[in-house]
């Protein structure tokens, strides 16, 4: 019995205990730099989303490459050759792995109509914003400021202002 107790606490120590924010931040930085060192391309998330959308449309016989701004991106697309696609899949699987090993996976269903509206509006704004800015909080900001990019700093100021307005809207309409 005693050994069993000890085993359980070891599991809790390694797989259940949460890491500090700073531990997370430093590890994310190291992983992002490893990626650049090996592939030459920085970590990004949203750059491929419009291509995914075009790919889905192509299954329904719609040629998204004819859309303005697509420049044949859908026809050329191969999942395994797209770094952003691979890391995105990895992030979903990694988060799933983390909750499974901690035995804390739980399906959280949408609870209200407010959440539906929030997801639709928030998703659309993020998509439009990321494409206009040329990158998201990862590609333009977390991979940008460390590269001494002016755009990274501008992004930081304005995402903060947006988050401020968003918090007001969240409090007023979505909470």
């Amino acid at each position, binding site marked *: 019995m005693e050994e069993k107790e000890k085993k359980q606490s070891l599991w809790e120590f390694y797989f259940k205990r949460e890491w500090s924010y700073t531990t997370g931040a430093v590890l994310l930085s190291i992983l992002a730099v490893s990626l650049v060192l090996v592939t030459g391309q920085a970590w990004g998330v949203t750059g491929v989303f419009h291509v995914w959308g075009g790919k889905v449309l192509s299954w329904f016989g719609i040629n998204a490459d004819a859309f303005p701004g697509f420049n044949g991106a859908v026809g050329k697309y191969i999942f395994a050759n797209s770094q952003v696609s691979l890391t995105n899949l990895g992030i*979903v699987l990694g988060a799933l792995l983390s909750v499974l090993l901690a035995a804390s996976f739980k399906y959280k269903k949408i609870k209200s109509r407010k959440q539906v509206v929030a997801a639709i509006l928030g*998703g659309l704004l993020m998509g439009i914003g990321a494409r206009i800015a040329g990158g998201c909080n990862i590609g333009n900001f977390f991979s940008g400021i460390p590269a001494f990019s002016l755009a990274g700093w501008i992004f930081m100021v304005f995402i903060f202002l947006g988050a401020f307005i968003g918090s007001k809207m969240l409090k007023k309409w979505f909470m």
Partner: protein
Amino acid sequence: MSEQTIRTSSRKKTTPEQRRRKKTIQITLGIVLIAVILLVSALFQNTNPKAGFILIIGVLLGYTLQRSRFCFTASLRDPMLTGGTLLTKAVIIGLAVSSLLFMAINMSKFGLDLSAFDIKKVAGNVKPAGVNTAIGAFLFGIGAVIAGGCASGTLMRMGEGFAQQWLAFVFFVIGSMLGVFIMVPMDSVPILKGTAVFLPDVLGGWIPAVIVQFGLLALIYLLAQWWGNKKSSGIV
């Protein structure tokens, strides 16, 4: 180290027997998932020799984001919503560590005098800076707070099992397509298209750029520290 406490969520209404069963099932599925990830990585290797490495870095990014409850959206939102700045300070620390590492790579590439500088070869992303950056980031910030997750946060919560983020993701993709359309006319206006600017190039070398870069990071860190103390006792 003394700060590291074991934080486990308490679950009610389940018997110890049910909890043990759930634990066994989930851990088993976790181990199966590791095998699946390795198998998929090996399959992708056939197409792209770096694909396995990239996928596994992605898995580690997702694991780290989840395990440390890391959320860029919260780091921007919480100072206003709750007054908490712990996450904000962590993001600044992450940026400082990355800055140091990226700087080392770029210094070795371009030389200390920037004589070999080429904007296309910068390690990291130097995206076009312009009015578009400001508008895009502003819209992105509103969206991320409303949807309850930024780009990385949405993907992480999809893995954690949040249905709301799966829905947000669908509209994230639709929004991205709309964003591409919107950028087409903007691309012909220089101020709306933006220009890529590498700070050491325009500030006159590495030394002024380093002073500006780390000076600003330190300033924001101190501001966050001051704000956190002012708003609360400093706890999350």
